């Protein structure tokens, strides 16, 4: 049994309490501002205690930006992004760490490269890719000369004419953000620490690679899946620029864009109370996700089977 060092435990508690207070201080101010009336929130300095208008503000916010629909959109998009990222990255990392194949290093660096470019540069081209998903295919068909070959051989004209646009669709909000170097990298790091004996044993038992993946790797990855799941859900939840640009239907937008709509315009009444209130309401689903995924942070998974 590990000894208990009481001074150290006390110090740990103290550090955590202080950190919790500090990290939540900005949230507290959001709560204060979100519970004041428009006249009260203009006071400088802001009061230290919350006011009594929280429910009233929440109701105003709810109807003003149609928060219900936006929350639903955000949940779908954030879940889609998180689940998608985790799924494709688990597979990628599995491939990169457990298989010896050509271009393995190249593929890893290609995935990694996607972290290294500021979004501003690719806004318009990405938008073009999203409104015309088949463009790369068309390009490929033209460049490769497949179309003329087919035409010459069969007389059929091969054309990629479908007009496939993801504008104003959940797919359009999810797919462009689904690739993940972060998750691939983290799973790679994690898989590399998994004892070789497990894989050896699986192979001796005649298990296929995918069976090994499902029955051994996936369960062992649970803490990392939880950590990444939280991070990616919040990443998806807090997306602003893509949803703003990639939707032109007000009903298809997300809650963060809705909040931005409540940020007082330079010239108008600084009704920050509504903005802050909306920001707090928008935190509720992420908090539920954080709490739900807590159960996956179980200790000592790596010892299973020892």
């Amino acid at each position, binding site marked *: 049994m590990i000894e208990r060092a009481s001074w150290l435990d006390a110090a740990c508690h103290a550090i955590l309490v202080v950190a919790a207070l500090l990290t939540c201080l900005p949230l507290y101010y959001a709560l204060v501002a979100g519970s004041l009336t*428009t*006249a009260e929130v*203009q*006071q*400088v300095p802001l009061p230290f205690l919350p006011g009594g208008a929280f429910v009233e503000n929440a109701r105003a916010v709810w109807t*003003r930006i149609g928060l219900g629909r936006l929350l639903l959109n955000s949940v779908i998009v954030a879940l889609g992004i998180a689940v998608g990222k985790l799924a494709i990255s688990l597979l990628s990392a599995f491939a990169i760490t457990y298989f010896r194949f050509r271009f393995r290093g190249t593929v890893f660096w290609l995935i990694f490269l996607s972290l290294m470019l500021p979004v501003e540069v690719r*806004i*318009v081209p990405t*938008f*073009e890719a999203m*409104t*015309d998903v*088949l463009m790369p*295919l068309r390009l490929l068909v033209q460049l490769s000369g497949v179309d003329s070959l*087919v035409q010459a051989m*069969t007389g*059929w004209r*091969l054309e*990629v004419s*479908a*007009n*496939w*646009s*993801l*504008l*104003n*669709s*959940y*797919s359009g909000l999810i797919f462009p953000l689904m690739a993940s170097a972060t998750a691939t990298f983290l799973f790679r790091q994690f898989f590399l620490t998994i004892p070789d004996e497990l894989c050896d044993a699986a192979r001796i038992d005649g298990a296929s690679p995918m069976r090994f993946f499902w029955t051994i790797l996936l369960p062992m990855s649970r803490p990392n899946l939880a950590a990444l799941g939280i991070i990616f859900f919040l990443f998806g939840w807090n997306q602003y*620029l893509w949803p*703003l*640009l990639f939707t*032109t*239907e*007000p*009903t*298809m937008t997300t809650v963060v*864009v809705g909040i*931005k*709509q*409540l*940020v*007082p*315009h*330079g*010239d*108008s*009444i*600084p*009704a920050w109370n509504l*903005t802050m209130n909306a920001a707090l309401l928008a935190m509720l689903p992420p908090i539920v996700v954080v709490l739900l995924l807590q159960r996956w942070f179980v200790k000592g998974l790596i010892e299973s089977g020892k």
Partner: protein
Amino acid sequence: MSMAVSRRAILAGSAGALPLLRARPASAAPREIRFWHAMSGVNGERLEEMTRQFNAAQSDFAVTPIFKGTYDELINATVAAYRTRTQPQLVQIYERGFMTMLLSGAVVPVQELMAAQRHNINWADFIKPIAGYYTHKGELAAMPFNSSTPILFFNKAHFAKAGLEKPAETWQALEQQLRQVKAAGGPGSIMADDYHWSWFENYSAINDYQYATKNNGFGGLDTEFTYNRTPVVQQVGRMKRWMDDGLLQTAGQGVAAAAVFTSGRSATFIASTATHAAVMAAANLEWDAVPLPYEEGRTPRNSVIGGAVLWALRGHADADNAGTASFLAFVAKPETQVWWHKATGYVPATNAAYALAQSQGWYRERPTQEIAVKQLTRGEPTANSLGYRFGNFTQTMFAQREEAERAFGGQKPPQQAMDDAVSRGNEILRRFERLNAGRY
């Protein structure tokens, strides 16, 4: 042959699968006119209300207002949409984006659109500095929507404590007053976020100082900044002196400059007349407003505007354009103008609207709301006060602010700061000239 067929089938299959995840807008009877805007907060609600009024007044068209973020985000969204042919009919673009839009090839000049759709608008009736800002080759290129100009708000209580009634008319006398207010235990003044607009650009227009050659850019793309050879340099020095002496503060991020003023923590506040909305929403504030100060010995001219205009985008069916024009005609109506003026604090765009507001007794009720209109219509605009027409205007403005802030922080003397701002600005103008040669 089978290969081609199966390939087709695959493509068709994938194209068909995805719309499952797609929300289809219900097709309604009136033709939809999409209107992208950047008005958040309370002004956004007012804008939506305006579109509802239009939709209720007729049944052929329905304008859908769509919030597209800040002005910067909106112009980027417009670019992306236009390049993928998904653009809306109408976009609201800020004044500094004028040249980009004008030379974009993506817009239908509003006067051309209205003529083609047979709407009769009295273009000559638009208030000069507003129309002038957006007029190219004798025609208004976009419909004035939210226009404002800075005025000087002041805290009556702080002035009274120093034995003063109201701010003086010249910068020199104002400085003395601000020192008196400070000596009487009052606070300094707060500077708005967009200080370059009021303290440099409007300052130059009101005092009739040249800002750039070629009539401040109206005369050609080969314009060059000259404000490093005008009293703008002294103005930068004045601002630094005021900051050093505690007479002037920047609000920074995290608090609106207007909130510092409305909470009684500043003696004066030079800001857009649209700030009226915030000032009037504040409780327990004794305030009043006056026109912007000018330099001793100068005759004050008209101030220049800021804000945004509505651009009609190309690439829409004639039936859509009819709707766009119909809405723009509605925007230009004196009744709409006055309603918007009262609801938001922006200035009316036409003399008819101004007269209507007067006849309704609005300015007896709200005298300070008239200051901006009077300041805009003060005398005949000169070549120095009609406005500014620079390509990449935002970029030159950022270079100028950066250099001015170096002077405020004491890293450079004001003269050198403005020399550097001008030389950086001119380089930026040359890039625009090179790209757009022969198109203005």
